[in-house]
């Protein structure tokens, strides 16, 4: 009886260990969830989850090892950035010449906004001053043109 109990306890312990190991073994989906956010450092525009080069196969294997060791996605991405540089994330470096790629769109947006504000202000000020300035302009025109204008307006009515 005692040996049966011991066997049962041993079996349960074994199942617990196997269950824990299974829980810690990352699935292909877990690996691809990280790999899809990394770019093959040797190819152009191909993410590691769909890349078939030996280097990508090795990277996926390393991702699996790191996930099994309890590392988070961000930690794994940071590791690969340290190894291969910023390009592995598919984004330009945030320093040197690469910094301009980050700054220029915002600079262009700012310039565009300034231009739009300027144009809108210009239009509204023209509309406000339009009537008065038209009258001033007409007052400075020679009589013969005013007469001609009035005549043409009469004819058109």
């Amino acid at each position, binding site marked *: 009886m005692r040996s049966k109990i011991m066997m049962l306890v041993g079996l349960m312990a074994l199942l617990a260990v196997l269950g824990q190991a299974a829980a810690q073994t990352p699935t292909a989906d877990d690996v691809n969830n990280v790999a899809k956010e990394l770019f093959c450092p040797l190819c152009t525009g191909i993410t590691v989850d769909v890349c078939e*080069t030996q280097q990508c196969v*090795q990277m996926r*294997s390393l991702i699996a090892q790191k996930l099994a060791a309890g590392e988070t996605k961000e930690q794994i991405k940071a590791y690969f950035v340290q190894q291969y540089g910023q390009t592995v994330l598919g984004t330009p470096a945030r320093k040197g*010449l690469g910094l301009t790629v980050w700054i220029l769109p915002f600079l*262009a947006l700012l310039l565009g906004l*300034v231009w739009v504000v300027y144009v809108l202000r*210009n239009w509204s000020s023209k509309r406000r001053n339009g009537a008065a300035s038209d009258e*001033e302009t007409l007052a400075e025109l*020679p009589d013969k043109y005013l007469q001609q204008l009035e005549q043409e307006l009469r004819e058109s009515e």
Partner: protein
Amino acid sequence: MTQGVSSEEEVMEVLEEKSGQPDRGRLVIQVAGVVAVLAVLALLALGLRYRAAGRVDKGPAPAFTLQLFDGGQVSLDELQGKAVVLNFWASWCKPCAEEAAVLEAGWRQYKDKGIVFVGVDYIDTEPDARAYLKRYGISYPNGPDLGSKISYAYRMQGVPETFFISPDGRILDVYIGPLNREALLVRLDRLSQ
């Protein structure tokens, strides 16, 4: 009433003056736009010039510091006075495996003749790199090219590639592809003279 305006041209001038006051704001925006476009073009030209700088196959060898797999580090500065064989490799690279034994044999033969071998592991995964070094019994200093900085500084074309650097820090030769014994020994003899 007419204020001296007597021709159609003069009428048009009056109309233009009224409709188009001197516009400082527009001028500022135009200048800013032109400056922005010129700045972008200048940056593009700078980038293209940097990329078109060509191969590093002679002249002073770019300085580097390599973190080694065994925890230490080695820099070109501290190797002044010694000839250096700088080999770029990767564990996924089949031709690198072809030359691995040749390099190790060359290192063992020439390490007492003032020649240092340094292996730079290019775009690799550490467990596979370590397994590669163990498999081929590589004993000279090796480390990962973190951020691909060294391979970029040397404008490395692809692995395997080997740079032969003189004791005064100048690149004497570059060999692209797997080295065979004869090709390596010829260069090592030249370096050790």
